[in-house]
């Protein structure tokens, strides 16, 4: 729970010395509560008060950066329980577990598949993030497999080994890539904590219940290891959702530092449909990392798409630049279609225009990211806005005709739009799926 200005005031010297630049300690406390001034502005603050206020300033869920290269990513640093309260910030990292008992060829094949798991959706690139190497054989094999993985993927690395000397050596080999170490338990935390500290690597902490987990994170903090990821082990989906929810609430509602870390969940289903449903449940319910087995593109894209949906900022719909977009080898006679600048509207229309193989122009009108009907209702996609867009986008410089295709759902504006724009209005299909047939039958 955030401290109020009055709470902070109680920790200040209350001398109104003005050294901070403000007239009273209370005024300074109010500024601190808003995080508008740094605590250092007060030269007389006690060490104890300073540490309380500094802890207060830390994010409730520690941000953890995974990896070091261009595909590094941050997890944690979340601030809400429900996305409508603000937004979910750092999309769940999606990873794959590879067993070192596979042959080198099998590992390479799996990595090649994982490396190809990249998709484009509504103008965003969707990628998977992690590869974990799980130890099943001896140390020598583990190190060999570690090198293989380092050489064959640029995804971030997680090292899962119970043999700590092997884990340490693998960590040294992979140090440049800042791998995530797995895992600290009640039995090994001192030793693995020392390795994580020496190599400066983040560490996963595993315990079945929240008490044990809290004890472990405190022990590790005492050893100077602070970049932690939590895992509550193997349990039922409902129990896992309970743990994920409870850990998020502990961090946000009780400022429980011992549990203020992102959480990793491992999905252990063999059936790809079940795996996708379980993985997406954890993405929706707060997981920082979800580890999978399945690498089928059709399964993984469904998981990445759900992640994209859940992590979209509810206040800022995905939008594109409102302008004229040529699709294919356009000419002066190519058809002209108009839609909004809501990414989903534009990319859906784009996909269908491409599928039609008829070169066309798409005019994207600035509707501040609203979809066709919403923007129409809000008067952002009306005859005035479309006419203005026709004037300013340079349409008249690139096409010779004066025909404009509008979405079927806004057929009612045809007359007004025709009068205002001087274009002949052609009412297109209601659903984008009808565009290919529509374009083919034009003329």
């Amino acid at each position, binding site marked *: 729970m955030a401290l109020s200005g009055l709470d902070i005031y109680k920790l200040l010297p209350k001398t109104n010395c003005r050294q901070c630049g403000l007239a009273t300690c209370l005024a300074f406390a109010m500024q601190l509560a808003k995080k508008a001034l740094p605590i250092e502005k007060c030269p007389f603050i006690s060490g104890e008060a300073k540490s309380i206020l500094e802890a207060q300033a830390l994010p409730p869920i520690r941000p953890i950066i995974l990896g070091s290269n261009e595909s590094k990513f941050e997890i944690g640093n979340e601030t809400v329980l429900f996305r409508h309260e603000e937004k979910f910030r750092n999309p769940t990292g999606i990873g794959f577990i590879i067993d070192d008992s596979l042959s080198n060829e099998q590992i390479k094949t799996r990595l090649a598949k994982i490396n190809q798991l990249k998709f484009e959706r509504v103008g965003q690139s969707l990628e998977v993030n992690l590869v974990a190497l799980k130890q099943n054989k001896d140390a020598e094999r583990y190190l060999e497999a570690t090198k293989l993985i380092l050489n064959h993927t640029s995804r971030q690395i997680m090292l899962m080994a119970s043999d700590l000397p092997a884990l340490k050596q693998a960590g040294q080999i992979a140090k440049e890539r800042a791998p995530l170490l797995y895992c600290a338990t009640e039995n090994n935390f001192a030793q693995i904590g020392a390795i994580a500290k020496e190599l400066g690597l983040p560490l996963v902490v595993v315990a079945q219940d929240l008490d044990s987990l809290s004890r472990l994170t405190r022990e590790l903090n005492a050893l100077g290891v602070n970049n932690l990821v939590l895992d509550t082990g193997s349990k*039922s989906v409902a129990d896992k959702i309970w743990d994920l929810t409870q850990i998020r609430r502990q961090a946000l509602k*009780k400022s429980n530092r011992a549990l203020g870390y992102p959480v990793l969940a491992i999905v252990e289903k063999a059936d*790809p449909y079940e795996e996708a449903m379980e993985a997406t449940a954890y993405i929706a319910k707060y997981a920082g990392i979800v580890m999978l087995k399945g690498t089928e593109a059709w*399964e993984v894209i*469904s998981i990445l798409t759900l992640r994209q949906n859940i992590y979209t900022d509810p206040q800022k719909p995905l939008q594109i630049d409102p302008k004229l977009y040529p699709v294919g080898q356009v000419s002066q006679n190519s058809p002209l279609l108009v839609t909004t600048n809501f990414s989903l509207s534009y990319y*859906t229309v784009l996909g269908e225009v491409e599928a039609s193989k008829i070169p066309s122009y798409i005019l994207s009108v600035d509707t501040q990211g609203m979809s066709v009907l919403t923007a129409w209702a809000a008067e952002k996609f009306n005859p005035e806005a479309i006419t203005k867009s026709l004037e300013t986008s340079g349409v008249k410089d690139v096409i010779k005709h004066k025909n404009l295709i509008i979405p079927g759902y806004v057929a009612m504006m045809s007359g007004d739009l025709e009068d205002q724009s001087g274009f002949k209005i052609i009412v297109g299909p209601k659903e984008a799926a009808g565009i290919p047939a529509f374009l083919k039958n034009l003329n």
Partner: protein
Amino acid sequence: METQLVLEKWPGAVSTVSIGAKKEEGGTRSCSIKIGGESALPLLFKEGSIPNKPKIAFEVWDIAPCDWPEELLAAYGEEINDPLAWADKCVNKYKAELLCVKMQGAHPDFGNKGTGESAKFISRLLSRVNVPLVIIGSDDDTKDNLIMPAVSEAAKKERCIIGCAVQDNYKTLAASALADGHSLIAQSPIDINIAKQLNILISDMGLAFERIVMDPTIGALGYGLEYAYSIMERARLAALSGDKTLACAFICFIGQEAWKTKEAKSSIEQGIVWEAVTASSLIQAGADLLVMRHPKAIEKVNNFIEILYSTPRL
């Protein structure tokens, strides 16, 4: 335990809706299915009562479907061209617990079937299958206002859910639900205020909140799912906090949205997983009744619901 759990105790609960009336209740259905009734957020079993699992209704039409992709049609085989045989196959082969019948054939563009014909179809369907029914119109308001009263009457006392009432067209349907003992779907366009307003308008006509099922209008995975997801979370939080005007169970039309997408048409696995993940994700937001299309997607989601609900919990 040293960690003090953060437990939410909610004053409110979602109302329970029964679908289907058995013989002793004046109907002819083999069972009565309950949805809703939860006094906790989805799957947080330790914070309240979650008495009923989410249920899946197979979507069937009164005509052969006109815009379903080939792969989806293929799942039903030849029976898809004979609506009664199709419904029969859902129940007897795929063990559907519920059917959602769409009276698409009444739509002026899809056959323009008349009142008598539509009502007769429902009577024949009721004698052909004995599972509880959800019955929805053709999406043409004018036509639906003509046929739905007769359709509703043909299923009188069977305790169906009928729909879909919308803000500027709810009176005819609400009157039918009231007269014939059905519950009513109140559909709002991804807008919590309209959802609330519509529920109040319907309850003002005398249909209790307990007989309203809300359709928040969902988008498929990748097609605006997150809008409905958050509207549902907000409505459910309000309901649990004690707002009776939003304390209704949710119905989500998963199949019609999922099978419209480009992804669903790209491969059959992609289509099935798209429908399944759309459904399972909305269960996380509180969906109580899911209307779905592909038998395999339905089987997978049903299995997942079993996994979610049947494991021993501390």
